[in-house]
């Protein structure tokens, strides 16, 4: 076929959108399906903590605010990296800011408690399970989100996959907060962030393989 004929064909199919929401509109539903899957998994596997106590506890809201802020930053990164030639700088700056604020909160908290309690604040009682559980909860969302991303145009697949992993990892961490009763900011900073980071690495590895279009 001649290229001119192809152009004539394609032009019949004109119409579309250049809306800034067109990409978010595909990534968010996929991640939400993943979030519901994670919630179902959590309830079946670990159960939920006593939520009436949780909603009045500042530590619950501290953790949730942190993971939701990371999820929003992750979405900014994943959204930009799903578009050719778009810059993810803004999302990355947001990530750094969110982490820096959490670092300040954790440091303040550690400095205000007696030294003997510091190891407990750092490790809690679930440090060795927390990150892996977050990763497990992130996997369904990662699958759905990468699938949605395949329909977009990520020109840097590994990086885009990492963005997707970060986004769904932070959502999974938010869901995990419905079970986890750890209260310290340092614990959250280290182990929650660790689980999210592993999810981002998984996303990068998977992205490099499946994000071909």
């Amino acid at each position, binding site marked *: *076929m001649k*290229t*001119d*004929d*192809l*152009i*004539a*064909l*394609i*032009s*019949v*199919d*004109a*119409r*579309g*959108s*250049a*809306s*800034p929401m*067109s*990409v978010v509109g595909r990534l968010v539903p996929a991640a939400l399906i993943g979030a519901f899957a994670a919630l179902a998994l959590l309830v079946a596997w670990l159960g939920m903590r006593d939520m009436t106590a949780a909603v009045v506890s500042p530590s619950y809201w501290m953790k949730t605010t942190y993971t939701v802020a990371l999820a929003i930053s992750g979405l900014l990164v994943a959204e930009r990296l*799903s*578009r*050719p*030639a*778009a*810059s*993810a*700088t803004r999302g990355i700056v947001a990530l750094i800011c969110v982490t820096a604020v959490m670092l300040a909160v954790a440091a303040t908290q550690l400095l205000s408690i007696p030294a003997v309690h510091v190891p407990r604040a750092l490790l809690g009682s679930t440090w060795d399970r927390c990150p892996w559980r977050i990763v497990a909860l992130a996997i369904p969302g990662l699958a759905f989100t990468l699938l949605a991303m395949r329909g*977009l*145009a990520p*020109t*840097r697949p590994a990086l885009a996959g990492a963005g997707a992993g970060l986004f769904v990892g932070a959502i999974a961490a938010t869901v995990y907060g419905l079970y986890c009763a750890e209260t310290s900011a340092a614990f959250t900073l280290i182990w929650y962030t660790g689980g999210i980071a592993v999810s981002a690495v998984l996303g990068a590895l998977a992205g490099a393989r499946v994000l*071909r*279009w």
Partner: protein
Amino acid sequence: MTVANRTSPARSMRTGHGALAHTRLGSTTAPGRSAHLGSGLSEIDAPLKALMLRGLAGDTGAYAELLSRMSVHLRRYFARKLGSGDADLEDLVQDTLLTIHLRRDTWDATLPLTSWAYAIAHYKLIDQLRRRRVRYTEPIEAAESLFAGDDGDTSARLDIDRLLGELPERQRQVLSDVKLGGFSTAEAARKSGMSESAVKVSVHRSLKALIRRVRDENG
């Protein structure tokens, strides 16, 4: 990387090449280090962007004009990268045009259209080169394969006409009506007894089927 993608077209335009042709400056290095954005970028980008926006609003004439201008830039870009006699050149142009069309929702209207299109063309080029490397490392066969009249490489070549032939009859009919003799969708619709929107849906499906086949052939 992002900055490079955005600035490369600008650099080439200042040196008088097309929007997608950054070759001379960037062919051996990663596509450009940071460069000063010339005013040339907006000079080339603005009219293309205007055509794209009209196309997205449903103006088929403007959209065809955009794709046609884009194809000139793409051909020049791929020719510089692969050599003008390269067997895959026109396939690459067509594949990129189809991709630009089917992924048009990923263009953010606040960003330059040229850098977006360039990033897609670059991705397609790299993808093509990667496939070739795979092809070249296939096991060496007996000497006669070199002298065989019709070797696998020509048949592996993308042939959109043949792919079209594999589409369901009705889709193919609509496609050739629209393609030949400048039938409008309304005329093609009358001829096939479908509604105009059904014709458009049919064309859209066919284009999607085409790009899937392109991928299967090459992948």
